[in-house]
């Protein structure tokens, strides 16, 4: 943790501020959300690293998807992700967004979240303990440090592929494309 190294602050204040001021939208439909209250309250206290929950995607910079994603919530996840201001980071929690987890044969949940929105980090487990969330956040810091947490850039450059995947599973989307789609004609 290099929050107290003034030299780094003067070299690149923006990157350091992105690391130590992660405002989080927790997507609370999966079972993983039960691990979030201990991590933000007195027991593990995420606020000491500047991580606080916010109520709207406009104010957020980190998007934590806690648990399985059904088709209905995928729609809201995409809309929430697109409303967040760039730079934005996504972390998924639990096995289900990685490969379907215990819902691997369900007709109504998606199996690979990273097909539909870019995911910067995945915390495996069913469910991961709050400590695992902190380990995930420290990994995210490393990624931000090395400019490897570039999910939002991938979303911009590969938007037509992401949009095609979204339309394939959700049918016709009722909102306009966020970025211009290439190769439509």
């Amino acid at each position, binding site marked *: 943790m290099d929050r107290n190294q003034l030299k780094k602050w003067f070299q690149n204040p923006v990157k350091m*501020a992105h690391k130590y001021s992660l405002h989080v939208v927790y997507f609370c439909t999966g079972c993983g959300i039960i691990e979030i209250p201990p991590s933000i309250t007195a027991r593990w*206290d995420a606020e000491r690293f500047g991580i606080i929950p*916010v109520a709207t995607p*406009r*104010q957020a910079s980190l998007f934590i998807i806690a648990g399985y994603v059904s088709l209905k919530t995928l729609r809201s996840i995409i809309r929430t992700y697109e409303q967040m201001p*760039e730079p934005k980071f996504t972390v998924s929690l639990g096995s289900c967004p990685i490969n379907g987890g215990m819902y691997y044969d369900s007709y109504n949940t998606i199996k690979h979240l990273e097909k539909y929105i870019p995911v910067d980090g995945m915390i495996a487990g069913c469910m991961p303990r709050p400590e695992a969330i902190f380990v995930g956040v420290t990994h995210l810091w490393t990624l931000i440090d090395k400019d490897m947490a570039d999910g939002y850039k991938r979303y911009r450059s590969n938007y037509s592929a992401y949009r095609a995947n979204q339309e394939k599973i959700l049918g016709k989307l009722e909102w306009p494309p966020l970025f211009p789609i290439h190769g439509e004609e």
Partner: protein
Amino acid sequence: MHIIELIFSPLLALLIGVFFLGLARKVMARIQWRYGPPVTQPLIDIIRLLSQKSASHGVAFNIGLVMSLAGSLVITLFLPFGKIAPMSNSGGMLVILYLMLIGPLGMAISSGESANPNASIGISRKLLLAMGYELPFLLVVLALMTAYNTTSITEIVSLQRDTGWSMFTFPLVLSGIAYLLILPAMLGVRPFEVVNAPQEISSGPLVEYGGPYLALATLQHALAFFIGISLFVNLMWGGAANPVIFFLKMLVVFFLGIFVNAVFPRLRIDQAIRYLWRWPSLIAFAGLILVCVTGS
């Protein structure tokens, strides 16, 4: 020298306001037995927010935000901070009373443009709450002006230097108590945190603010915090001749507000209005009558 003060005092107000925001988070964390973020955390947040890109929601969205921030910055020129009082000789209390409305009004215009239902609920709550605390506040200010026979805030401060803090001098005791009772509502801390309730209405008027817009809104919030505390210290706790002493007095008031914030749950807006228009208003009215009867 005057020009330096004109530039310096809004910057000082911003600095102290942001410091108070950070200290509030730290103190709240310590009360809840957490370690808490560093005191510089709001500054880190502001740097991040300024570097993000976000959507604007129209011309009135931008203008209202700037208007609100500018209105709050102008008030800091009229409020004496110890000896630093660049424009407090002109205007006095009446100008401050007018300008205090610009902050909420600008935010109302701005977040009204964002066309989010949560923002509309937040604005209506904000204006209702303002209506709730303005009545006792005006009664308190009227009592002060009658007692000291002046509308100038510097004169009120300098008169208190001879007579002692107005909160503890005889005819103004009731007004002081009333002001202390409405102070949490004016600062917008927890029993009256109905406007920005994140759990109920998704942080109210700020629901569509992101990136640099949220940074400006945070600065405005910091300034509003500063103005509320500074006005109380000037009017009731005798101001100070020395900026350091003034800052210490502000810190004491700030801690009182944070302790109230830490232990009380949030009221509903109708409960808040009922409270504000009953006890503080009655006490303030009694204080005004007391001042008029016992006055020279």
